[in-house]
């Protein structure tokens, strides 16, 4: 959309920038005119066109910068050397990335400023009352938080002049770099064009100055129509030109405005000065740190605030946030070990740098080149002339070159005001990041608990079985079985030391050297390696290409063609042809070594689409002496034996006593027992004899029980099914394809048959095409037609339509 002339003045009055002698205004760079030939934002306020504390009109943005642009990903770094505790909030501040933007679209403006100090950057500000100019970037907690702030130095935005017109046909952007040959001094860097930097014959090039601290965008233009060579324009040293973000900034939201006014919090701001990315050395930055408002910050280095220092060097008086246009590989370094609060933000030259720069410049949707000859005199459709691609008005870093530039809408733009992009109503951007491959979790390290897992051969299992049944033999005589078992096997039953034994249909990976298999504290004589993997092993168990047998036609899809895949231990999965057709299909099996559970993942071109679970191990039962039961039985039997022996002695003595007392008619426990009759005495005598006999019998039985305690057995685990292991031990793809009635089994065969031509001529192949009827030949059936251009009667048109719908020969 065109720049809003209600705000920035009538386009006929927009002011020319710099010294261009061109008279055709479509070929000029122009800036706002708020009235009386005034152009600064401050002037805009004075003229009633702008309001303080309100965002300025965004119509300056002729396109949107996509999320790929560094302007959508601005980082903010705290500017404190070491750590500092904010006295007002108690918040610890240290040098680190404080916040970063992540906008899908960034609206921006090119801003021009003629009041530049080569040493300090843009330092000339007008107060809103129009009184004084202020110099220096001191006395601010952060880059000026608002359009106007009396408590800060003044309105830092005031001297910025928005550019309202860029002559698209007379503007070629070129990359400019700030580079250096070392990272151990603060020596000023050098400014070079990219084409110079890539030329090893140039004094300053990528081999001898590999460190890049900033990258900017230069402008080449024909100063007037008679010139045959474009020259650099809007250069930084005399008339700084930068880019500013027009969207809301939230990095200061909730932060204190000043340390000495802790309750004064900042909110969302529209601070164009704080995001004016240009400097005295490079204009229109696309990478690097920012100059504006910060003393001793330029494209070479930044000066961190020393929290312990008072005065101008102290934290109270310095900006606390460094805006950075980032690069994924950028780093900070301390160039001077004795003064660590000076830092350099840089990247080291790499092969892909040129392309990265191209993508960044392309986001602006203008012509650009990194070739000197093309910059100076190349046509806009010459081979090395590039043009940023705009998708719905947004630049994502793609570009065209040469003749292809003609196909872009910008080819027909005279100026940026011919853009149709509406910054107030930007297009919807898909925020998703797509990655059509999926992998497995390589960080998994399943918990091992208190268990150890040994990987055994069949022979190991046999030997262990033998060894295990001898485990109790090593018990010292002076320790009972229970205590021995507790100390050796950590349980009163050795069998409990075994948690499980599983068989897998493949060689289980093992690690390290063989060591004796240890059950609790008991070392067996069998050695084996341990399984100490992640707990889940991943295997690729099959791959193939799902070939479009019918040339990718509808016959290759369901319900005509079907494909399923049989996966050992997991089952059968039908593959959805709409996803898998004409892709590389791979089957990956993850096996939980702990439990035997497995899951097969089926990928289409590397992306997991289906999964199916199963079990691919067999539990092997282990049987052994149930020691706890054995101990219990022996204990009880012994106890009974002792009891029997005591009982027998007592019974014999008691029987004699009973006979005596019976005979005497006295109770053996006292006088209360009455004297029994003679018959009763005889019965008592017989009973006593029987009692002695029974006690003797019990004793013998219990002695037998002790010596014949049945050895109890116990089984750990249960045998699980093995039938799966008998099936084919590989994946099998089952394909189902249609056959033509005439027997043809492929399209080629069908087309080669006489039937196909008859079918085409009498039925016609399915088609969904639009066009004029004359675009088609042969038998043609139309679903509808617009007959309004035919001078026929209604009845005739109806007849024509019926004929078209039933089929005609064209």
């Amino acid at each position, binding site marked *: 959309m065109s720049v809003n002339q209600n705000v920035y003045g009538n386009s006929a009055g927009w002011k020319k920038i710099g010294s261009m002698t061109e008279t055709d205004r479509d070929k000029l760079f122009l800036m706002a005119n708020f009235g009386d030939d005034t152009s600064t934002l401050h002037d805009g306020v004075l003229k009633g066109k702008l309001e303080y504390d309100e965002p300025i009109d965004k119509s300056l943005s002729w396109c949107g910068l996509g999320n790929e642009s560094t302007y959508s990903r601005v980082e903010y770094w705290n500017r404190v050397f070491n750590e500092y505790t904010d006295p007002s909030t108690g918040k610890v501040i240290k040098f680190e990335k404080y916040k970063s933007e992540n906008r899908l679209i960034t609206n921006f403006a090119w801003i021009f400023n003629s009041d530049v100090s080569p040493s300090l950057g843009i330092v000339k500000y007008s107060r809103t009352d129009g009184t004084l100019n202020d110099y220096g970037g001191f006395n601010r907690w952060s880059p000026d938080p608002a359009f106007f702030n009396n408590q800060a130095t003044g309105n830092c935005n005031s001297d910025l002049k928005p550019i309202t017109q860029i002559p698209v046909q007379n503007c070629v952007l070129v990359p400019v770099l700030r580079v250096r040959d070392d990272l151990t001094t603060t020596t000023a860097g050098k400014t070079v064009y990219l084409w110079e930097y890539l030329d090893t014959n140039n004094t300053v090039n990528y081999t001898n100055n590999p460190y890049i601290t900033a990258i900017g965008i230069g402008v080449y233009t024909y100063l007037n129509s008679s010139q045959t060579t474009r020259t650099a324009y809007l250069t930084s040293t005399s008339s700084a030109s930068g880019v500013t973000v027009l969207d809301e900034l939230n990095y200061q939201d909730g932060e204190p405005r000043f340390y000495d006014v802790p309750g004064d919090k900042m909110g969302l701001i529209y601070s164009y000065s704080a995001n004016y990315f240009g400097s005295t050395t490079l204009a229109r930055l696309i990478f690097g740190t920012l100059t504006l408002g910060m003393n001793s910050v330029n494209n070479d280095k930044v000066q961190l605030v020393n929290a312990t220092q008072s005065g101008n060097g102290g934290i109270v008086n310095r900006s606390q946030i460094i805006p950075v246009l980032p690069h994924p590989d950028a780093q900070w370094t301390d160039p001077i070990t004795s003064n660590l609060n000076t830092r350099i933000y840089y990247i080291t030259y790499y092969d892909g740098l040129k392309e990265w720069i191209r993508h960044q410049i392309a986001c602006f949707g203008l012509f650009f080149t990194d070739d000197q000859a093309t910059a100076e005199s190349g046509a806009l459709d010459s081979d090395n002339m590039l043009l940023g691609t705009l998708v719905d008005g947004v630049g994502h870093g793609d570009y065209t070159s040469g003749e292809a530039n003609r196909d872009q809408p910008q080819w027909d733009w005279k100026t940026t005001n011919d853009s149709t992009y509406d910054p107030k109503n930007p297009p919807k951007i898909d925020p998703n990041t797509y990655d059509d491959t999926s992998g497995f979790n390589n960080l998994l390290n399943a918990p*091992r608990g208190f*268990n*150890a*897992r040994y*990987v*055994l*051969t069949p022979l190991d*299992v046999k030997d262990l079985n033998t060894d295990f049944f001898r485990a109790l033999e090593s018990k010292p005589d002076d320790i009972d079985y229970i205590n021995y078992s507790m100390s050796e096997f*950590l349980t009163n039953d050795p069998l*409990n030391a*075994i*948690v499980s*034994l599983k*068989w*897998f*249909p*493949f*060689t*289980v990976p093992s690690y390290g050297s063989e*060591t004796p298999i240890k059950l*609790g504290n008991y070392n067996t004589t069998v050695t084996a390696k341990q399984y100490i993997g992640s707990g889940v092993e991943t295997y690729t168990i*099959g791959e*193939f290409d799902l070939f479009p047998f019918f040339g990718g036609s*509808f*016959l290759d899809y369901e319900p005509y063609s079907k494909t399923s895949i049989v996966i*050992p231990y997991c089952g059968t999965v039908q593959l959805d042809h709409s996803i898998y057709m004409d892709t590389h299909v791979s089957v990956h099996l993850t096996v939980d070594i*702990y439990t035997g559970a497995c899951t097969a993942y089926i990928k289409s071109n590397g992306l997991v689409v289906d999964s199916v679970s199963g079990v691919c191990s067999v539990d092997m039962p282990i049987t052994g002496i149930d020691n706890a039961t054995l101990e219990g039985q022996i204990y009880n039997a012994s106890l009974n034996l002792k009891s029997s022996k005591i009982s027998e002695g007592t019974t014999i003595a008691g029987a004699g006593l009973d006979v005596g007392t019976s005979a005497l008619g006295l109770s053996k426990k006292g006088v209360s027992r009455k004297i029994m009759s003679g018959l009763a005495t005889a019965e008592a005598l017989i009973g006593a004899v029987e009692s002695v006999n029974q006690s003797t019998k019990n004793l013998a039985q219990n002695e037998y029980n002790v010596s014949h305690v049945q050895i109890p057995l116990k089984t750990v685990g249960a045998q699980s099914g093995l039938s799966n292991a008998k099936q084919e*031990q*590989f*994946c*099998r*793809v089952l*394909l189902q*394809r249609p*056959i*033509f009635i005439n027997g043809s089994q492929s399209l080629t065969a069908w087309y080669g048959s006489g*039937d196909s031509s008859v079918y*085409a001529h009498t039925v*016609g192949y*399915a*088609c*969904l*095409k*639009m*066009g*004029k009827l004359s675009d*088609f*030949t*042969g038998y*043609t*059936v*139309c679903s*509808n*037609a617009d007959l309004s*251009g035919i001078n*026929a009667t209604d009845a005739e048109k109806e*007849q*024509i339509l019926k004929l078209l719908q039933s089929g*005609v020969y*064209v």
Partner: protein
Amino acid sequence: MTITLYHCSEDPKTIKKNPTIIGVAKPISPTGIVSRDLPVITIEYAGTFTDANYMYIDTFDRFYYVSVAVDIAGKIVLTATGCDVLKSFQTDLLKVPVTVVRSETAGINEVVDTQLPISQEKIKRRSIPLSNDLFNTQSASPYVLTVIGGNG
């Protein structure tokens, strides 16, 4: 009014017909109104005219399918059986924007063609075994023994 007589052997559904011209005649009756929809016209006899099955009437700028008869006076009676709207409006018709759903020459494989003569009963089945080393190598150490304590 001039009648041009043709013999047309092409399919009536053909737009660009090229009928064979037989001759040109002037109507001798009716002398009054002639219907444009289905005209009936009498012309002088000529032997070749009896082969006509198609005619063009310049007054109406239309082609007609025609039935030929001879009356008792020996004149030829041409009875139009229908107007060939395809041929009559051929030029304009070919410029008409249309959506084509079936075509002899512009078929699109991706569009489902339910009329294609595909067997409902016969199906070709194939299978592909996918080799892998995991399950098909003699397993050296297939057992995993889990114990408490141990070296774990």
